[in-house]
């Protein structure tokens, strides 16, 4: 995470205005000049507060949602103990996959096939478990499959110079077909693993351990090693990164590898949580991780402002919101539609706040 400490923010504003000649030369900076009024000091501190606020918006969103959840839940007699556990159950897979995916998004790439690869990895894991009965082989299979699929996308994109997004659009279709083929191998509609087995391991402890280990790894790699810096550098300006000696191919492969690991672990937990896998399983994951990341303050175009914590914040926020909405709208016809509209509005509001310190004269792209 690249943060600004308060003094930095303060001084930075001064620098913004210290660039008289530069400021006017591009339309982008002209805005700064134009919008800065005579009340300089006021404006400067306002800008500083704006950026600080923007940085905090996802956290504020999380806090507000948590309070709303507790208030709504308590007042409607919800079993909060169970509800909190549910919260973790429902968000942990999204958080893991999304946190891994941040490595991809930080470098300005966009992978839309993560949901599909979760499904395929989960299916392979399920099949391996059914064949061997082993937990560890199943975990290994999930990770291997996910990393392999992820690396195929990365390699295709890197070797042939393809836009990652469209490559993953193609991967989405391919993985869908693979999932259909995998199901067909069982001669039935689903891949199902032993209930007793999944119940044994589908526990809070397993989830928290897997999540803690993986998230710690991600935070470490992202914030304390060369990899994270390089991902952000590539996201900020790929050309510069290249001309600074960063290997785009290796960087992409590393990012996709970690994302693949996350998908693998997510798939592993998916099998434990829902031991019955069909071609439509995990279909929501692909988009939900996107929403979670953005909700948590991730800049979708990546770059220096990427944050590794975004998925955690966003994932929990989404789960809180979903639960609160379902408590409030339970039993209401069309409730799902209204809940989704509320979700949309909140989503846009948080993103808007998070972007508030970083506006330019031209529209963002």
């Amino acid at each position, binding site marked *: 995470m690249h943060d600004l400490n308060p003094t930095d923010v303060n001084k930075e504003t001064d620098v913004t205005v210290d660039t008289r000649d530069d400021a006017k030369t591009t339309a982008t900076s002209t805005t700064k000049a134009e919008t800065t009024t005579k009340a300089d000091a006021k404006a400067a501190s306002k800008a500083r507060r704006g950026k600080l606020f923007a940085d905090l918006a996802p956290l504020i969103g999380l806090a507000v949602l948590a309070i709303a959840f507790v208030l709504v839940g308590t007042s409607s007699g919800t079993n909060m103990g169970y509800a909190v556990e549910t919260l973790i159950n429902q968000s942990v897979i999204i958080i893991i996959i999304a946190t891994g995916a941040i490595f991809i998004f930080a470098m300005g790439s966009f992978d839309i096939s993560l949901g599909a690869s979760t499904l395929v990895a989960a299916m392979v894991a399920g099949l391996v478990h059914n064949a061997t009965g082993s937990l560890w082989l199943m975990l290994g299979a999930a990770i291997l499959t996910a990393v392999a699929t992820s690396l195929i996308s990365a390699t295709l994109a890197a070797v042939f110079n393809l836009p990652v997004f469209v490559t993953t659009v*193609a991967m989405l279709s*391919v993985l869908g077909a693979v999932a259909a083929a995998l199901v067909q191998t069982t001669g039935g509609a689903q891949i199902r693993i032993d209930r007793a087995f999944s119940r044994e391991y589908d526990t809070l402890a397993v989830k928290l351990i897997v999540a803690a280990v993986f998230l710690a790894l991600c935070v470490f790699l992202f914030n304390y090693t060369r990899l994270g810096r390089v991902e952000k550098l590539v996201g900020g300006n790929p050309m510069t990164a290249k001309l600074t000696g960063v290997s785009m191919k290796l960087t992409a492969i590393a990012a996709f590898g970690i994302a693949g690991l996350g998908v693998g672990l997510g798939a592993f937990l998916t099998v434990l949580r829902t031991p019955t896998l069909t071609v439509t399983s995990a279909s929501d994951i692909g988009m939900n991780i996107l929403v979670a990341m953005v909700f948590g303050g991730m800049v979708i175009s990546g770059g220096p402002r990427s944050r590794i914590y975004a998925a955690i914040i966003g994932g929990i926020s989404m789960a809180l919101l979903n639960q609160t909405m379902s408590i409030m709208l339970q039993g209401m016809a069309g409730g799902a*539609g209204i809940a989704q*509209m509320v979700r949309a509005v909140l989503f846009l509001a948080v993103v808007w706040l998070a*972007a508030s310190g970083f506006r330019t004269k*031209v529209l963002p792209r």
Partner: protein
Amino acid sequence: MGSFMQRATGTLIIPVGVFAVVWTLATLDGASLFSSGDSLLILARATAVTMLTTMALAINLNSGRFDFSLGAMALASSTIGASVAINVGGGFPVMAAVTVLSGALLGAFSGFLYVTLRISPLVSSLGVTLLYEGLAFTITGGGNISFTQYPELVSFGKSLVAMTAVIIIALIGVYTVFDRSRFGSDYRSLITGQAAAVSAGVKEKGNAIKTYAVSGALMGVVGLIQASSKGLIEAGSINFSTIGIMFTAFLPMFVGGYIGRYSNDKLGYLLGALSMSVIGLGYSALKLTSAQQSLITALLLVVFLIFLSNEERVGRWWRKVKGGNRTPQQPSDTDAAQSVGTGAR
């Protein structure tokens, strides 16, 4: 840009080639591409839907604006149009007018949100998708809208003439608006020279909102055609289940971009859509399962992209092989691929 022959070849090589390959494969398999009387209608309808979606996607993607909400706009506008026509009456004209108009309004609102919030268009479109899916769901309470009792509302999609007319009108309309009008001139200047155009007085916000409105109107027409070809509107689609249609537009968009180098990208979108629809007929003639179909389509997308991204390399290699010294057809860096790069690398 080269001679007429060169341009004609570049323009037609893909659609003609696709047709030849698909026709040959079908014939070898003993099947016919146009096995039923409805084949032409299906071809026209699929071409219309794909072309409109491709245009709706491309006009914003060219400006680096990625739009997940295309399907949601089609869904919401047709839901509104059908509900009004069923509850108020007025038959197909009312349904068509309300659908396209509400499509344009939904598009404009989406654009308005984007320029007002000033957030990444991709992110804004995620929110809009949720919003419009939720809207359609709320209107019907999640139920489907069925036209079994109102066959007159859906005869539109069963008319070859109507579908052909849609294609022609949309092509001419979109070409006029984006290539010949003042709006289009501003639009194109904003694509590649955002900052310069804005400082020269081009109104970017208005232009963006209008572009979104056009995109929404096109998706309104798509919604209309889909409602009539399915005979129902699945208004209960939520949780991003409407985004699938967007993916069908990528390949024709790239094909269109390629063809656009030789003639015009709008014509390219038509020919790209036509090629995809021919391939669709081929799938049916060859009796491929849907898994096989999606696999092949995905491979085609990847192969074509590889070709586009490595055209220079391919060209260089080709010149080496031929040993000749033909002037390289310099690719203007595949516009579409480029914008996808900026919008969502």
